């Protein structure tokens, strides 16, 4: 059957494989069943001799696809990299001999099937041709001229790349004021230092590679990484004085933060007295000179700082901004430096002093700042005798009025500038809003085009039932923070950067810092999460490096994080496309646009190669050079399905390469044993699994199918945001198909496996096999 390429099969006998399975039997599969022109055994394939054997066959032209039946594809990938040939791996070690009894009949059948699947895969793949059409720009656009943006610009410039720095205000600097003080960065962390902003502005303005455009916003961003077309708008919408355009390779967004609206903090006395000010307002005073009372212009003798003003409060900001504690400590120190007799109180519920702020906390204690732990129940003007902050003092254990105060400072939190609040919000339909703001919300419906109608019918039924149970009202529609878009992306999926939580533009705090869910666009600084100066500087450098990396990779047609270096990209068979729009709607990264005839257009460098589009397409019109629905189903069908009488069920596991497949490998490495009736095929992401893979497997005689992916929901671990969640939605559609095939719905299951679940994944499999044993064999066997 192999007419595509010259396949060489190499069987490794090392690491206990040779002792546990009969390699001659495997050779029989390769040479006999599949007529592979070359099939060789070796005791130590990854050694120099073994590799020489393979490269010799390749050099002589006998082989252009090497099937390596040895260890997991996750290891030794460098050793089995041969120029001039594609490498396909059959996992005999971790998933056969290490996880199943040696010399067993079932183990041997599993090993044979691994070889069958790998050879079938080899037949179905061709070497990927990278996409690198047209010209690519090496310029970086930095949006935001504050500390983070300027640092990103400097880092990019120092690395040798040109930068366009766009700032909305008329001058650089952002939230940092000249004349301000910041926490000391060097021991002994006692002397506050001057703001670095003045020097940074000078540096940026003097840099030949950075062109600074102030008083401008981004009017439009179209294109893709390597070729973003950016239109700027200067001087506001009414007077479009000039609209310079730039072509850039990557974008760093550092639009920073603004303080939480203190107007909403009436319960803390804001607005009741001019001497109740926010931390930002106090900083304005301190930068300009001594801090004086707004009411009478006198220096305050007693000042109370109220921390967490509107933070960690479900009514206001639900999160901690991490910097307000340190900033208040700094301000208290500044007040005491100006006048050591000032009575300064810091009222906190929990004091959070990460990094150097802890040392400043000690410095403030030494200087005589009094720290009072407790919840503030009110701030009153005190009727002429000074302001009164009433604290439920946890340290004294009583309600304590803190009277005679001249000034109360509210430490308000950071709100990310994920939108331009000066511009009106763009109109968006719910489908776009949901994708931009609720992708990872476990409660939110996932936009699945084409399914949307019946999906919502189903969902409505379930929701109605749930509502009746819980007595809840209407579910809140998805929302995006108010304001215009920062980049005005001309994307099918809407103008904004998707937000992760609480309005911050990010993709995954821990695994993918700086990555937004728009490829080639990197967020850094307080736009990503609340952070201080030192962290913002690191963030800026990180995002700058990401941008540079993106510029280099897309030029060569290589995928960006997390499938870094992948040369394949989805190809659409437009001749069979039904314009159902599922690929354009479901792509987590907005890689597809639609042309005037509603056909999908791929922007290849926006693509992260997860294959979600491939899994979405109902007519299998989307495939990669080395990855397709056809490849997956052929691999599944290559497995020998024993007769019903043999009582050997077959269960197909489509396992996500990112977490589930490694967990299975690690289970094998730890010696965990699990059923030998399962056949595991790695997939790029569960999002790439078409519902057809499962139904095809069942009609081919498999007794059950497991879709094994990453954790979804709030603390999602999916590398492509919502793969397992999508699989769940698609799976809910398969029930009807199963019903029409007269099959039990229990035969198809989805499992969420984290990389840390290697100890339990074997039991999950065994439990499923037990369920299948209970149900009995698939009646389609043998048809």
């Amino acid at each position, binding site marked *: 059957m192999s007419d595509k390429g010259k396949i060489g099969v190499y069987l490794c006998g090392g690491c206990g494989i040779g002792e546990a399975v009969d390699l001659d039997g495997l050779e029989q599969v390769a040479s006999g069943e599949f007529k592979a022109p070359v099939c060789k055994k070796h005791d130590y394939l990854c050694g120099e001799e073994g590799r020489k054997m393979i490269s010799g066959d390749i050099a002589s032209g006998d082989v252009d696809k090497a099937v390596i039946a040895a260890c997991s594809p996750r290891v030794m990938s460098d050793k089995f990299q041969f120029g001039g040939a594609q490498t396909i791996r059959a996992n005999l070690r971790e998933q056969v001999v290490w996880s199943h009894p040696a010399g067993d009949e079932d183990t041997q059948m599993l090993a044979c099937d691994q070889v069958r699947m790998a050879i079938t895969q080899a037949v179905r793949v061709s070497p990927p041709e990278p996409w690198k059409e047209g010209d690519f720009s090496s310029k970086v656009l930095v949006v935001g001229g504050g500390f983070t943006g300027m640092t990103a610009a400097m880092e990019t410039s120092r690395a040798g790349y040109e930068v366009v720095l766009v700032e909305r205000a008329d001058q650089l600097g952002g939230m940092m004021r000249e004349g301000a003080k910041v926490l000391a960065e060097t021991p002994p962390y006692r002397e506050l230092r001057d703001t670095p902003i003045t020097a940074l502005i000078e540096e940026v303005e003097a840099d030949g590679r950075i062109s600074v455009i102030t008083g401008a916003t981004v009017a439009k961003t179209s294109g893709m990484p390597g070729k973003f077309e950016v239109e700027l708008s200067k001087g506001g919408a009414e007077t479009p004085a000039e609209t310079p355009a730039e072509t850039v390779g990557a974008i760093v967004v550092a639009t920073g933060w603004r303080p939480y609206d203190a107007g909403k903090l009436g319960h803390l006395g804001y607005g009741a007295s001019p001497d109740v000010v926010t931390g930002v307002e106090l900083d304005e005073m301190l930068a300009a000179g001594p801090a004086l009372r707004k009411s009478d212009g006198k220096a305050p003798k007693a000042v109370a700082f109220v921390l967490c003003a509107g933070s960690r409060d479900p009514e206001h900001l639900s999160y901690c901004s991490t910097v307000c504690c340190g900033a208040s400590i700094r301000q208290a120190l500044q007040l005491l430096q100006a006048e050591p007799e000032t009575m300064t109180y810091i009222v906190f519920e929990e004091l959070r002093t990460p990094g150097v702020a802890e040392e400043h906390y000690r410095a403030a204690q*030494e200087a*005589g700042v009094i*720290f*009072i732990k407790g919840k503030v129940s009110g701030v009153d003007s005190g009727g002429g005798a000074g302001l009164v902050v009433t604290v439920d*003092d946890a*340290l*004294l254990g009583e309600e304590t*009025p803190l009277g005679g105060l001249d000034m109360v400072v509210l430490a308000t939190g950071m709100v990310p500038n994920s939108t331009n609040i000066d511009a009106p919000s763009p109109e968006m339909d719910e489908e776009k809003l949901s994708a931009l703001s609720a992708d990872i919300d476990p409660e939110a419906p996932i936009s699945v085009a084409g399914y949307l109608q019946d999906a919502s019918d189903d969902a409505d039924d379930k929701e109605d039932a749930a509502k009746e149970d819980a007595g809840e009202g209407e579910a809140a529609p998805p929302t995006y923070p108010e304001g215009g878009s920062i980049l005005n992306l001309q994307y099918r999926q809407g103008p904004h950067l998707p937000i992760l939580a609480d309005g911050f533009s990010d993709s995954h705090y821990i695994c993918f810092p700086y990555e937004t869910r728009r490829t080639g666009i990197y967020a850094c600084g307080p736009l990503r999460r609340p952070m201080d100066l030192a962290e913002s500087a690191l963030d800026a450098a990180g995002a700058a490096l990401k941008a540079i990396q993106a510029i280099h990779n897309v030029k060569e047609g290589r995928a960006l994080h997390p499938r870094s270096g992948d040369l394949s990209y989805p190809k659409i068979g437009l001749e069979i496309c039904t314009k159902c729009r599922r690929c354009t709607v479901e792509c987590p990264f907005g890689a597809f646009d639609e042309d005037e005839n509603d056909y999908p257009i791929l922007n290849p460098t926006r693509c992260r190669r997860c294959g979600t589009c491939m899994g979405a397409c109902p007519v299998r019109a989307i495939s990669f050079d080395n990855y397709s629905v056809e490849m997956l189903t052929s691999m599944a069908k290559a497995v020998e399905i024993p007769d019903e009488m043999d009582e050997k069920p077959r269960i197909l596991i489509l396992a996500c390469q990112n977490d589930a497949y490694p967990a299975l490998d690690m289970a094998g490495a730890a010696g965990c044993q699990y059923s030998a009736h399962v056949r595991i095929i790695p997939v790029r992401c569960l999002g790439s699994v078409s519902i057809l893979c499962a139904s095809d497997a069942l009609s081919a005689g498999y007794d059950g199918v497991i879709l094994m992916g990453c954790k979804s929901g709030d603390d999602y671990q999916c590398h492509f945001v919502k793969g397992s969640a999508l699989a769940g939605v698609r799976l809910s559609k398969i029930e009807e198909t199963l019903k029409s095939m007269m099959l039990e719905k229990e035969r198809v299951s989805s499992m969420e496996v984290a990389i840390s679940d290697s100890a339990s994944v074997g039991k999950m499999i065994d439990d499923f096999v037990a369920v299948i044993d209970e149900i009995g064999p698939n009646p389609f066997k043998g048809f």
Partner: protein
Amino acid sequence: MNVISPQAAPPQASSKYDLGFARWVYANVEGGAKMSLCMQCGVCSGSCPLGDAEMDHGPRKLFMMVRAGMKDAVLGSTTIFNCTSCYNCVVRCPREVPVQYILQSLATKAVAEGYAEAVKTDNTRFSGAFNWSTAKFGRTDERLMTAKYYFSFGLIAAMKMSMANLKIALSMIKRKRMHLGAPHRIKGTGELRAILAKAAEIESSAGGGS
């Protein structure tokens, strides 16, 4: 740091968290300068072998009361008089605040300010008797010191306490641990008085906190 006249008596706070008293303590109490570093972790109170029955506030809370300007409550608390000087708190304090020194010094200030009379814990009575004996004879006379301590409770209580401990007293006499007759004195009681007088003079002029 906070420059306040050393002779000044501790000021009374006009309201909670009026820092006048706290600053006076920082400047005038031994170890007070380090007291500002207290972060209220409570290791001192947790390490203290005396419980609620012996102290009306733990050291942690007492320090917060100092900050809150609660002068009467601080100087009138049993905490400062009942401390047994085991030094657990001093050894364990993560901020190296000399808790015991501060309590001791506060107790001295409380005596000087006349708070001790009102407190009248066993410790204040016993300390009074001990000081009386050592100042008068240069050593402790078990019989007279005990008698002075007992009589500080009043005549009837003293009789009861004496009778209850009679057996012990007789045993001590038998074993020459206590003697009858004139109290033993050191040779130079006059010089001792001069030393004590000088110490008092230094203390009043320096205002303690040495």
